[in-house]
């Protein structure tokens, strides 16, 4: 019985752990804020913005990606989807901010996008802007216990 309980506590969850997100700093914009890339000056980044991100499986089988704010979602097959939405409605005005992570999991790696959508509606006038960044992610296999200060 004890052995069964111990085994149940150590079920491998493919997303659980610390991941290195390597984000392409060059974002694409769509919606009302989309720019015309065919004209004007252009700046293209070299390299990636790298950030450590913890991912947990939470009760109920959902996943939590510790972003700012934390993203809640699912792993279905190899498809990872997680999002967070916040906003308000006051009389005829509303605003929403949505952060969405979508990726394909392959072993200890992921490839996908991180997007942020701002939508505003004010007495019938609407405005939407989506900013999207491509990223790859690799899971760390080191134990946090190996690091001083943890």
């Amino acid at each position, binding site marked *: 019985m004890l052995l069964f309980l111990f085994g149940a506590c150590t079920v491998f969850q493919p997303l659980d752990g610390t991941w290195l997100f390597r984000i392409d700093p060059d974002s694409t914009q769509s919606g009302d804020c989309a720019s015309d890339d065919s*004209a004007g*000056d252009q700046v293209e980044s070299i390299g990636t913005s790298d950030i*450590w991100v913890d991912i947990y499986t939470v009760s109920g089988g959902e996943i939590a990606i510790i972003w700012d704010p934390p993203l809640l979602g699912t792993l279905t097959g190899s498809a990872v989807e997680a999002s967070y939405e916040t906003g308000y409605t006051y009389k005829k005005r509303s605003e929403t901010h949505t952060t969405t992570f979508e990726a394909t999991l392959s072993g200890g790696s992921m490839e996908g996008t991180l997007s942020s959508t701002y939508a505003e509606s004010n007495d019938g006038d609407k405005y939407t802007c989506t900013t999207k960044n491509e990223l790859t992610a690799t899971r*760390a296999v*080191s134990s946090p216990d190996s690091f*001083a200060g943890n």
Partner: protein
Amino acid sequence: MSALLLTLLACNPYEGTWMLYAEVTKAPDPSEEGLDMVFTADLVAMSDGSYTADFTSFRLTGTIEGDEVNMEYVEGYTYSAPDCDEMTSSATYSLDGTISPTEGFDGTLKVVSLQERKACGGSDSDSSTTEYSMTGVKLSANDDAHAGAQSGGQAMGQPREVD
């Protein structure tokens, strides 16, 4: 017993917090040569067999094969204007050397800054190289022995953006 053996086999001898001593051996401004500094970096093993050396403000990724370390980090941008003007600015950090859990790390960090400009009328470029002689030792991570002390770096696993 077998679980203990598996745990020991799984242990990566390189992963952990390293204290690194760096001395400038080559710099655009010769007066900087000979300067030394000490800092910590977390060496993290990744699932694809690569390693990430986290220097807090930047992260090098690469390989450790045998005892040979080869890691790199690149940052920069390319600016281009419709009138065929183009400017590239980049910095490449390369860490090479040998590593051993008992002997420590011995190698070189090379930082190459490059500025290139291409215009309709011609082009020019400028680059500078700073080299650091690096030695390092791995810290014991028995944090239970320390009264709340923190290392110079930040804990792994906390979202931190590269500057």
